């Protein structure tokens, strides 16, 4: 009986990869454990091993094919005593390897509980293609009305780049500019980053400035803060912010408060960065959004970008900032591509939200991966004649109340979208601020769409239920529009 060999996932969040190289050819006898092929993502190269014994009857996806979706059959293995040519001829048509293959949720994405997370390439202004195959450069010709575009001069060339690359470039550029900037964390140097965000930094800047730490979050957070007290500018990577709970005392009691307690003498120019929030199928201890936690603390700035362009511009600003900045990334966004301005020194100011999409009927406020639900929901709403204005907060603290309030004064309605918990969340804060500043403009109560009030479950169906969904956002928007 012929066996399909499927494109494997290298990580909980991988959706596609490149079939770099076949190490066996059609007709070869293979045993379990034999390396069949090498596959690549923008993060890593891995080997595909045979699990079953047999003959490689047919290769369905050839060397060098990009964007092969996880679980696509890549070859057929004929079982023992089976007619190889018969097995090969029973092969289905090779799976399409075009980027479009990704826009529909794959079975694997469903299995990973991601089916409901909108795929980025279905959202205008984003592009899920890996950079290995760069899109033709686009140019800003038509400046849209939102202020955020003023950050990018007219005529600037845009290049597509993943969030991961944008973050890396931001660090590299700041490290080139300032010898006081260094990066430390677990696996940041030789391993090139647990999520490959620090790829290449060790090679360029050496072991003195790109420092692998032991697994010791509380300790190295304190070491970073102490170094920052002396004026160095550490970029401390947490493998994920879930692990930073071990270090939260140093972040809050030492980094955030010392300037005040010293009467302004001792600043702490440090960036704590890393993936925050739920990835996929990693359960409760690895799936928490800390935006609300850190946003409660005076003395911290909290940044959580969605696009690659904001990731780059904001990380550069964070590294230059004289204050401690919590920089919350998202693992699922790392591999997504967005146009990034090609400028020598592109920064985005901390504390400014961006109107990502204009509309007149309802304001949707979100940030980070929450934007993927918000934007997709806005598209759905448009079909029903509701024009949603989508605000990307980008910075959580200081919160850009003015942009939110101005939008609510226009639309009279607001919903918030976040993956974090409902109680004392970012949505709760926004609702309170709208009450304080725009109560008379409201035509409906502010509604929050959040992660559910439960620890993140592991089971795919339960995880999906625990996260917000596009349907929930659409429903909330319609509810505040009384539709």
């Amino acid at each position: 009986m012929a066996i399909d060999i499927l494109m494997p996932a290298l990580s909980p969040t991988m959706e596609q990869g490149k079939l770099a190289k076949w190490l066996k050819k059609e007709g070869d006898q293979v045993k379990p454990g034999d390396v069949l092929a090498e596959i690549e993502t923008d993060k890593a190269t891995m080997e595909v091993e045979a699990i079953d014994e047999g003959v490689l009857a047919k290769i369905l996806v050839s060397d060098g094919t990009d964007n092969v979706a996880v679980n696509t059959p890549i070859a057929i293995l004929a079982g023992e005593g089976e007619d190889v040519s018969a097995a090969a001829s029973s092969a289905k048509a090779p799976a399409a390897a075009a980027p479009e293959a990704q826009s529909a949720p794959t079975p694997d994405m469903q299995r990973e509980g991601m089916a409901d997370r909108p795929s980025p390439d279905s959202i205008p202004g984003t592009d899920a293609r890996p950079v290995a195959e760069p899109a033709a450069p686009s140019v800003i010709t038509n400046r849209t009305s939102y202020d955020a575009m003023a950050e990018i001069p007219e005529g600037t060339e845009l290049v597509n780049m993943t969030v991961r690359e944008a973050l890396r470039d931001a660090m590299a550029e700041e490290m080139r500019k300032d010898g006081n900037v260094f990066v430390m964390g677990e696996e940041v140097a030789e391993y090139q980053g647990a999520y490959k965000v620090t790829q290449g930094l060790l090679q360029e800047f050496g072991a003195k400035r790109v420092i692998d730490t032991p697994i010791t979050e509380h300790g190295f957070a304190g070491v970073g803060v102490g170094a920052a007290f002396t004026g160095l500018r550490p970029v401390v990577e947490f493998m994920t912010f879930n692990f930073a709970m071990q270090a939260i005392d140093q972040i809050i009691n030492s980094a955030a408060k010392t300037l005040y307690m010293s009467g302004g003498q001792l600043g702490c120019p440090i960036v704590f960065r890393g993936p925050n929030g739920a990835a996929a199928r990693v359960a409760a201890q690895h799936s928490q959004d800390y935006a609300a936690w850190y946003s409660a603390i005076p003395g911290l700035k909290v940044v959580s970008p969605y696009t690659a362009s904001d990731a780059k511009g904001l990380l550069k600003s964070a590294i230059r900032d004289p204050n401690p900045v919590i920089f919350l990334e998202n693992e699922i966004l790392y591999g997504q591509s967005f146009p990034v301005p090609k400028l020598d020194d592109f920064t985005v100011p901390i504390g400014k939200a961006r109107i990502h999409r204009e509309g007149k009927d309802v304001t949707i406020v979100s940030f980070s991966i929450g934007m993927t639900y918000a934007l997709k929901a806005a598209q759905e709403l448009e079909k029903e004649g509701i024009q949603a204005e989508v605000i990307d907060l980008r910075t959580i603290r200081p919160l850009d109340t003015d942009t939110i309030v101005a939008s609510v004064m226009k639309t009279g309605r607001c919903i918030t979208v976040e993956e974090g918990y409902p109680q004392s969340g970012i949505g709760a804060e926004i609702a309170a601020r709208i009450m304080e500043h725009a109560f008379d403009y409201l035509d409906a109560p502010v509604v929050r769409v959040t992660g559910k009030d439960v620890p993140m479950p592991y089971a795919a169906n339960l995880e999906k239920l625990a996260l917000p969904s596009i349907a929930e956002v659409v429903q909330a928007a319609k509810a505040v529009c009384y539709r």
Partner: protein
Amino acid sequence: MAVAARKAGRAGAGTANKTTPTKGSTRGAAPNTPQFDKNQDLSAYNEMLLIRRFEEKSGQMYGMGLIGGFCHLYIGQEAVVVGMQMATKEGDQVITGYRDHGHMLACGMDAKGVMAELTGRRGGLSKGKGGSMHMFSKEKHFYGGHGIVGAQVSLGTGIAFANHYRENGNVCLTYFGDGAANQGQVYESFNMAQLWKLPVVYVIENNRYAMGTAVSRASAQTDFSKRGVSFGIPGEQVDGMDIRAVYAAGQRAVEHARSGKGPYILEMQTYRYRGHSMSDPAKYRTKDEVTRMREEHDPIEQVRRRLLESWKLSEDELKAIDSKVREIVNEAAEFATHDPEPDPSELYTDILL
């Protein structure tokens, strides 16, 4: 509890609970204790006396309601910080926990500024916003003043990291107590400091009680000089009541760290005469224990005796020193009593740069 006392043979105040120090402690200097010359003894006397009188005044002002919150006095431990400062050079940094008044004075920070911070006034070193446990001076290389037990150990290791990064030849003295020595981040820091050979000296001020808990009730290994053994960090137990022993050990430790060999641990066997904080009824030890420590091991009295006996100073000369020190302290207290409270607008300053 006697476990530690057995080890105390070679060093100072001993570590046993409710016992007086055993043989070999501070009265006679250990055979290899270096002698001080007259100037060293004079300087040590002045500095230790300033801390003693300052702390006595702080206690008094706390009683008068001029100082609020927590106030942890350094009385009895003066030889540790003064001796260690003698072993440092300009540029070396100091960081400690919340029993920090002595460290600030030893670093040369202004007594008026320290006292006014204790009273929460605008002329305080942190403009009245830090209080007893949180003061800093970049100019004097003093990095606090930290209220979270053990946090200063990682921070001090980070300051040493910065010295290493900048290759500036400076050493960071990182002080913590026998209580903090049981915090996890201490060992995380030890590991990184030795791994990266950071120029840090860990000074463990073992005053025998973590709040009200005797060392032997809280620590499986009461010889704190051995706390770095599994990382390969050398350590020694030091009679922390004898400033000459502190200075000599401090020189060895600082030299080790400065020469690129990495961290060094000094367990300073010392004693605090007062309670943990002002509100401590000190039921965990006998009055007799405290009295005997004061009478037989007082660090200032040891130097005073040398000044009289070896250096032939007169009682009048010592009195003159004492009144000069009192003058500084009284002036500080006067300033701290009458300096205005911070302007209400200060509430919202110094949160971000």
